[in-house]
């Protein structure tokens, strides 16, 4: 056989994709442990998965550069259109390399930035979680999967931003970021679902190929708006820009990572990714370009007047994100190329700047520009890095920011906005002008000027490890700035992927004398002038009234909280009976509305005749029910009468061909009544009359309405034929399950999974009761119990002799009956449930007759163990099917013929039923046992031993006397 090597290679390569996206999540488990080995080891082990993922990506890079697209798909929930599918094209590769590359640099930088008191293991774990989420976004081929990762970035960035938990700003900033980006994410879910519905597939590749179909759809505009809401909130576009500066309360490595390469770029990435599907329409242009333009100018203006270094950089980030958004909004190929190029450039200089700001803060112990200055002499290396990066941000020639800014201005210079030719170029120039001003301020007000002597801490250059990362980025800034053609293949690769067409980026420093050049020159000169005028302008800015986004946001949140609190407190006022009344009324009304809306066909069945005895049974049931209601204040009486109701229901089951139900009902009935009797011992014996006549009346109306509704519904059901899956069970019970009792076969075979869940629930209920009782008896209730006296209703004879004798005689017989019921269950009425109940009744009788202490002494296996054993046996039986290569809980059976016994059946289902039996027995016993422990707690006064006269003890005492 000849292996197609190329194809084989391709499939190997594609299988890297899920591994790459998983690596950070797996790696996230490690730092928390490795921190014990020291900080450097911890950082190394964080870098490891990032590095591995990066290597795998670089292996795939040549193929992607050639134009190949790698895909990998793992079916997850195909019914929902959700699959874990990944794909890697130019855009995804660019972003993935940025995320991982900067991730490595940040890991290194954070190692030196974080102080000894910071829990570093936590930090790296959060960082890797975030990195994995980001990586997932850029590699997902399924938009539902993308949404999952999108929400994960919101959550993990919340952890990162709020990393310094002791700082209120950190917590508030994290909360604000989560609220804004989370809300946007919710909107985006809606948009993506609409998109999926239009195309008929949730696969990104299908959606990107169906751009025309999407744009022609009526749902295009809502989908676009919802998706843009997600992108705008994430990328901090006006009017959602306010969260980003507040997220600056995070440690600087976080800011550098989130706000240069990752989090905020996710929105830009999404717009770029969806470009072929959504861009190119009027509404796209006016929404995206306009918002981008406003954000760019606004961010740049505010940045100039921020004194906090990181706040300055934060608003500069907002401004640059606006620039990117605007470029994508233009919807032209050239603009897309400029956007991709600027994404790379912004990453290099902005990450370097954030790290520089972090170094300054770390060394001088302040980030306030007004308290800094003259740092160039004290920390020359840092100053050089910061200056290079800031000049690039300003868009000065020979730095990479210049080239992409020129391309942006060029695009803006021939963009019309509502037929207006000058407004976009003018505003773009204004944005660039302010950008120059704040960049120069960053350089001159921090590094320039004379050395001061009032720094909070005397600064000097940090160790190499701390400036290595920004220095590397600064080198990139210069290299791309001088030799932009080096970046051409990367830009081409990503731009091809964005536009879905062949692009020819042509990156060079000198574009000739064109409008962009004049705009650029104007911006640089104007920026310099602005900086010279900064002092008076700053005073004016401080004096001017400005809306404070945080106050507005907090006010908004407070209002919403007030509203919801008002509603929930009005509805949720502690009166359970009121909630129940609302619930019942609402259900009846909804049911009635459904009845009004649906068409009910004519009855198709005849009514069955009513024999006289059955009629009397019914009468008894009705009378007993009414008696319970009338006598419910006398609790003992009501309890006795409710037993009659249960008996009549069981009798009904017998008559109506449901022997299994009758057996179960009657045994459950017994146990329930015992339970209630036990409980009633500690409760008041009478209910006080508290309800007013009005209340009784209104409750009666609600109750009768509900009763009528349910009764009529049941009647309508019974009078009509309809198809269900029941016939299948009847037909396959014997052939497939090997049993003739179809109900039992359904329980242990067809729907074994349900039954398995149900016995677990029952077991949990038993354990919960035990735990509750444990807590109760050790608390104040236990003391109250010990001190109360129950003499009045206590029989003089605790252990009536007759009862003791009879129950002991009955025990083996009852257990035999239980075993019999269990064994015949598969073919005749019976089974694990009923058998468990019967045996527990037999045991309970011992408790009642001979007392708690006597019975407990003879108990060999704890009830907790029984529950556990039951679940275990059932589970193992189910798992046994795996050994035979079948799905969980597939049963097997066979017939065995042993002389001289008749042929009999062996089925794994019987083993499963044994698990059910054990679990039911354990749970029921544990419940009643817990309640009886309470009785024991309440103290014993009369004859303590069953059989007050024990002949063996008499002999014993005689012998003692004789000695």
């Amino acid at each position, binding site marked *: 056989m000849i292996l197609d090597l190329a194809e084989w290679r391709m499939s190997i390569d594609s299988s890297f994709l899920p591994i790459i996206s998983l690596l950070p999540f797996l790696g996230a488990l490690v730092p928390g442990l490795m921190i014990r080995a020291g900080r450097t080891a911890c950082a190394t082990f964080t870098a490891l998965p990032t590095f591995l993922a990066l290597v795998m990506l670089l292996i795939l890079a040549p193929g992607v550069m050639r134009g190949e697209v790698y895909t990998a798909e793992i079916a997850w929930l195909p019914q929902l259109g959700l699959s874990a599918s990944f794909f890697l094209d130019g855009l995804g590769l660019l972003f993935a390399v940025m995320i991982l590359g900067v991730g490595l640099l940040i890991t290194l930088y954070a190692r030196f930035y974080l102080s000894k008191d910071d829990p570093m293991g936590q930090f790296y774990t959060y960082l890797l979680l975030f990195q994995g989420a980001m990586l997932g976004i850029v590699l997902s081929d399924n938009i539902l999967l993308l949404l999952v990762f999108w929400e994960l970035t919101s959550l993990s960035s919340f952890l990162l931003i709020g990393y310094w938990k002791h700082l209120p700003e950190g917590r508030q900033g994290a909360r604000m970021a989560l609220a804004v980006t989370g809300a946007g994410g919710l909107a985006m879910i809606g948009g993506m679902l609409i998109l999926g519905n239009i195309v008929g597939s949730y696969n990104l590749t299908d959606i990107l190929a169906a751009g025309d179909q999407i744009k022609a759809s009526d749902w295009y505009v809502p989908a676009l708006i919802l998706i843009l809401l997600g992108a705008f909130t994430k990328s901090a576009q006006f009017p959602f820009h306010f969260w980003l500066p507040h997220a600056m309360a995070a440690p600087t490595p976080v800011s550098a990572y989130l706000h240069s390469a990752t989090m905020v770029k996710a929105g830009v990435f999404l717009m770029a990714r969806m470009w072929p599907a959504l861009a190119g329409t009027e509404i796209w242009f006016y929404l995206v370009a306009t918002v981008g333009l406003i954000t760019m100018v606004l961010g740049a203006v505010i940045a100039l007047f921020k004194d906090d270094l990181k706040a300055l950089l934060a608003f500069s980030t907002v401004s640059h994100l606006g620039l990117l958004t605007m470029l994508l909004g233009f919807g032209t190929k050239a603009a897309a190329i400029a956007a991709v190029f600027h994404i790379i450039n912004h990453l290099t200089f902005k990450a370097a700047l954030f790290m520089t700001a972090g170094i300054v803060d770390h060394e001088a112990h302040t980030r306030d520009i007004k308290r800094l200055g003259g740092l160039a002499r004290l920390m020359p290396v840092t100053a050089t890095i910061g200056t290079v990066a800031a000049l690039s941000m300003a868009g000065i020639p020979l730095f990479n920011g210049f080239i992409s800014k020129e391309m942006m201005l060029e695009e803006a210079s021939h963009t019309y906005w509502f037929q207006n030719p000058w407004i976009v170029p003018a505003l773009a120039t204004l944005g660039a002008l302010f950008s120059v001003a704040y960049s120069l301020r960053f350089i001159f007000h921090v590094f320039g000027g004379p050395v001061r002597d009032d720094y909070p801490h005397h600064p000097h250059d940090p160790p190499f490890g701390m400036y290595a990362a920004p220095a590397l980025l600064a080198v990139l800034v210069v290299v791309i700035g001088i030799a932009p053609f080096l970046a051409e293949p990367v830009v081409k690769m990503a731009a091809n992927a964005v536009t879905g067409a062949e692009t020819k980026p042509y990156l060079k420093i000198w574009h000739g004398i064109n409008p962009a050049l004049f705009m650029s020159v104007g911006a640089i000169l104007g920026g310099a002038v602005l900086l010279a005028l900064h002092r008076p302008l700053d005073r004016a800015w401080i004096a001017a009234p400005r809306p404070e986004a945080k106050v507005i946001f907090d006010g908004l949140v407070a209002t919403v909280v007030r509203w919801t609190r008002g509603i929930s407190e009005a509805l949720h006022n*502690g*009166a359970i*009976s009121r909630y*129940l*009344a609302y619930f019942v009324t609402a259900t009846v009304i909804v049911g009635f509305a459904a009845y009004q809306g649906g068409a009910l066909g004519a009855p198709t*069945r005849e*009514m*069955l005749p*009513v024999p006289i005895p*059955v009629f009397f049974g*019914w009468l008894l*049931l*009705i009378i007993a029910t009414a008696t*319970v*209601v009338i006598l*419910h204040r006398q609790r003992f009486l009501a309890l006795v009468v*409710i037993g009659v*109701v249960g008996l009549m*229901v069981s009798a009904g089951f017998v008559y109506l061909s*449901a022997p299994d*139900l009758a057996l*179960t009902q009657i045994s*459950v009935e017994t*146990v329930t009544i015992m339970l*209630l009797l036990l409980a009633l011992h*500690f409760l008041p014996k009478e*209910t*006080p009359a508290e*309800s007013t006549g009005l209340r009784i009346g209104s*409750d009666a109306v*609600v*109750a009768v309405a509900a*009763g*009528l509704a349910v009764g*009529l519904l*049941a*009647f309508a059901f*019974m*009078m009509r*034929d309809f198809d269900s899956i*029941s016939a299948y*069970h*009847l037909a396959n019970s*014997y052939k497939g399950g090997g049993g*003739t*009792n*179809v*109900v039992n076969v359904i*329980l242990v075979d067809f729907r074994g999974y*349900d039954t398995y869940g*149900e016995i677990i*629930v*029952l077991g949990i*209920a038993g354990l919960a*009761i035990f735990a509750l009782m444990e807590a*109760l008896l050790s608390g104040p209730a236990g003391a*109250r*119990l010990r001190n109360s006296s129950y003499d009045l209703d206590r029989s003089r004879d605790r252990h009536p002799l007759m009862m003791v004798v009879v129950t002991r005689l009955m025990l083996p017989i009852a257990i035999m009956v239980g075993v019999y019921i269990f064994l015949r269950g598969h073919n005749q009425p019976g089974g694990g*449930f009923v058998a468990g109940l019967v045996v527990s009744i037999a045991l309970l009788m011992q408790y009642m007759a001979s007392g708690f202490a006597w019975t407990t002494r003879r108990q060999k296996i704890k009830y907790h163990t029984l529950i556990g054993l039951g679940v275990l046996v059932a589970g193992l039986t189910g798992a046994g099917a795996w050994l035979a290569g079948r799905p969980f809980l597939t049963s097997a059976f066979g017939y065995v013929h042993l002389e001289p016994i008749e042929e009999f059946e062996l089925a794994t289902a019987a083993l499963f039923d044994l698990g059910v039996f054990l679990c039911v027995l354990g749970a029921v016993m544990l419940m009643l046992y817990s*309640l009886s422990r309470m009785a024991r707690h309440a103290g014993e006064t009369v004859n303590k031993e069953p059989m007050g006269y024990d002949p063996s003890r008499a002999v014993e005492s005689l012998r003692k006397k004789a000695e």
Partner: protein
Amino acid sequence: MEILVASSVGTLTAAGVYLILRLRAFPVILGLALLSYAVNLFLFSTGRLAIDAAPILNPYGEASYTDPLPQALVLTAIVISFGMTAVLVMFALGAYLEAGDDSIDVESPDPAEKESGA
């Protein structure tokens, strides 16, 4: 026959609802017990009624069988509703012993008092 079953379901529901609207824990438990009878009967009745047609297969010939599926569902429902009743009884007991009162409505709707754990 159908009328009898339907009216039983209706009566049990009405009685159950009336009792769960009472103010003390014990009648509410009784009400829930009646409601579980009603619900179980109702579920059972969705398989329609049949007499002498238990879903036990007859290996010796043709016979008609009633719908087994609702029966299987109701069987587990009966057992589970016992578990639920037991847990509720425990709550009621605990509340009564802790508070000295088995009233189910919290008297004071004042949120400040609730938050302080009263």
